[in-house]
């Protein structure tokens, strides 16, 4: 835009005529759009169709738009147009020292808050449910982060492994365990199936991996996307095995064999406390918290092992890896398998939490959301992912509650339907202002004297 360049060139001094011209242009275009859309609303009364004018709204929106644009002119676009010079030297070290000083405390603090949450929430059902919901996505995103963030392979079908884990639990606990071991084993089904679900998902990760790992970039993304859809379609259509779209009702998990119920053999009776349904949800909350922490610590340890370094090296430069004798096919397969394994664990947990699985839970949009969390958090950053999950899943929840917009929406629409729009907008803004996500600095896995974080613009994103 001409006005931007002009004002930038003067570096500091505002180019008022250009700004005013730009604001007038903005006003003109927005009025052009708003007059037909916002200014009049047709309302069907009992007898006729009347037009209600809403000029106040028009001017409120217009004022907001102009205000934002003026703000941008004065404080954002006005800056010297050399992001390299601005970010690299002067801002870099200062920012680093701040984030490095608080950095080590962020994760322990988050964990402490997470452990205390049921108490902080006064054992209310809603916040605990929300905690379970967010933690599930944190875990999924941490799993996908291995594939996308560390190894740099774009996987759009991650939800397939989530589905494998969920159906592994559903089928084993309702069909196979009663058949093989009798009903006595069913209370233990969750604990026995959890590792099996992970292993099955990892196996599927390898099965998917073999044919697709010769592909790169866009091709890899498309094939993984198709794989995700295939799994879902098989779940829908293989009626005899999966019960098709009707889904499967799944038994609840128990506290190491003690069911959460009112009777004498229940959890509450065993511990001599009064039965309360909330116990089950608190239990689920701690289960997913522990599973997510397992994912975190295992991934963290893997990063410091040769396999993890090879993943990151693969993301940086595949050809250099091969010149150093790294079997890149195996390295990619392990990334797929281990990422899938955590997806499988999460799926198993999801099945028991929902008490019901059906193919509808494993649609593409789930993969997209998990990927969005990884990207928003900052590729490869585990802490960033926590904040991204809270932001995205939290805003989804927020949208459920917003009836403020209701008045302006056509009859029958729900603000919930706009949540993707809002997330999309948030993503666009992120990509514009923080294209590498919340946390862009990479922590090295080994150091001689001091651990210096690597600035995000040196870290590559992988080619698929």
């Amino acid at each position, binding site marked *: 835009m001409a006005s931007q360049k002009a004002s930038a060139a003067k570096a500091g001094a505002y180019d008022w005529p250009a700004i005013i011209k730009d604001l007038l242009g903005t006003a003109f275009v927005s009025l052009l759009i708003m007059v037909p859309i916002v200014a009049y609303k047709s309302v069907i009364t009992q007898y006729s169709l009347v037009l209600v004018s809403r000029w106040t709204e028009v001017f409120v929106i217009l004022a907001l738009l102009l205000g934002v644009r003026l703000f941008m002119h004065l404080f954002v676009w006005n800056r010297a147009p050399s992001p390299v010079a601005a970010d690299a030297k002067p801002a870099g070290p200062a920012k680093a020292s701040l984030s490095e000083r608080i950095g080590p405390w962020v994760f322990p603090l988050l964990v402490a808050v997470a452990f205390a949450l049921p108490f902080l929430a006064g054992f209310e059902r809603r916040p605990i449910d929300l905690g379970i919901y967010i933690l599930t996505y944190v875990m999924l995103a941490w799993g996908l982060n291995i594939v996308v963030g560390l190894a740099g392979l774009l996987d759009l079908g991650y939800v397939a492994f989530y589905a494998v884990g969920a159906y592994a639990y559903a089928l084993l606990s309702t069909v196979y365990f009663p058949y093989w071991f009798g009903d006595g084993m069913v209370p233990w089904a969750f604990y026995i199936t959890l590792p099996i679900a992970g292993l099955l998902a990892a196996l599927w990760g390898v099965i998917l991996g073999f044919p697709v790992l010769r592909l790169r970039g866009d091709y890899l993304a498309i094939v993984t996307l198709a794989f995700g859809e295939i799994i879902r379609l098989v779940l829908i259509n293989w009626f005899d095995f999966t019960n098709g779209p009707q889904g499967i009702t799944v038994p609840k998990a128990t506290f190491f064999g003690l069911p959460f119920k009112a009777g004498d053999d229940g959890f509450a009776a065993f511990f001599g406390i009064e039965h309360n349904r909330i116990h089950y949800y608190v239990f689920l909350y701690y289960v997913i918290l522990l599973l997510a922490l397992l994912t975190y610590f295992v991934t963290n340890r893997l990063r410091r092992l040769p396999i993890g370094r090879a993943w990151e*090296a693969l993301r940086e430069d595949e050809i*250099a890896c091969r010149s*150093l004798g790294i*079997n*890149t096919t195996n390295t990619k397969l*392990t990334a797929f398998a281990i990422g899938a394994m955590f997806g499988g664990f999460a799926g198993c947990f999801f099945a028991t939490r929902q008490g019901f699985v059906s193919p509808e839970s494993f649609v593409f949009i789930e993969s997209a959301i998990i990927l969005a969390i990884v990207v928003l958090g900052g590729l490869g950053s585990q802490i960033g992912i926590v904040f991204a999950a809270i932001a995205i899943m939290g805003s989804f929840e927020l949208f459920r509650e917003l009836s403020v917009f209701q008045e302006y929406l056509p009859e029958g629409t729900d603000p919930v339907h706009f949540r993707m729009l809002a997330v999309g907008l948030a993503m666009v803004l992120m990509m514009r202002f923080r294209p590498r996500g919340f946390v862009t600095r990479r922590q090295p896995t080994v150091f*001689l004297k001091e651990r*210096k974080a690597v600035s995000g613009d*040196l870290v590559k994103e992988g080619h698929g």
Partner: protein
Amino acid sequence: MATANKTPVLTVEHVTMRFGGLTAVSDLSFEANRNEITALIGPNGAGKTTVFNCITGFYKPTEGKIALRHADGSEFLLERMDDFRIAQHAKVARTFQNIRLFSGMTVLENLMVAQHNKLMVASGYTVAGVLGSSHYRRAEKDAIELAKAWLEKVRLIDRADDPAGDLPYGDQRRLEIARAMCTEPRLLCLDEPAAGLNPRESEELNKLLRAIRSENDVSILLIEHDMSVVMGISDHIVVLDYGQKISDGTPHHVKSDPAVIRAYLGVDEEEEEKDALAAKAVAEAVGDQA
């Protein structure tokens, strides 16, 4: 530890590499001797990098045979092996004409990645490593020691914890050599290591390469345009032009070979009489260091 009896470590026999209609390397044969520095030179587009890619398995030669012999007598037919197996088992390491470092990883991490296969075994293929085995921790310590030793040699020890992408160009070149050496290779292939270096840096590179050759059981194959490096350190030079070998011998021999002078100066057949003059020009240009 230059050996008196020259045994070939690498034998290239009748290698041809075609890309569609273009023959980048045609019927090339040469040998590189153990513990020697062999230089591969030639004008731009002569096919030098293509030869490297055939040796290191990144290209499969259309025709021909490439054999590598270790001192213990084991032999590898490189034209049949995958690129990463050549690095892993035949122990051939390389650098790239356009540097390929892991720029988002630190200098030390780059050298740790180079020791992947060794560490992978020590970590029990990750299983023991995840469980925190002390055996792996010891192996990792040794790997860091090796990395440190190489960082001292290439004078990058002070930058060990900095991202590789932050290093200046000359340092990146030396880091790439150190990374290749951390794989403990028997044959080190360097593609234009002096490109972009100033005279002081290339003099330093000469010293480094000589030190590498004398302190390690390694043979070096070198592509280089910088004649002061080539003439200064190579024991043996192979000259390529349009994919064909036009000369092969000691630096002294190659320098006075009319075919080489023709290729470099583009002299016509009829103007042979001017060769003597041209030879003098070349000798001045390259500096008589051999």
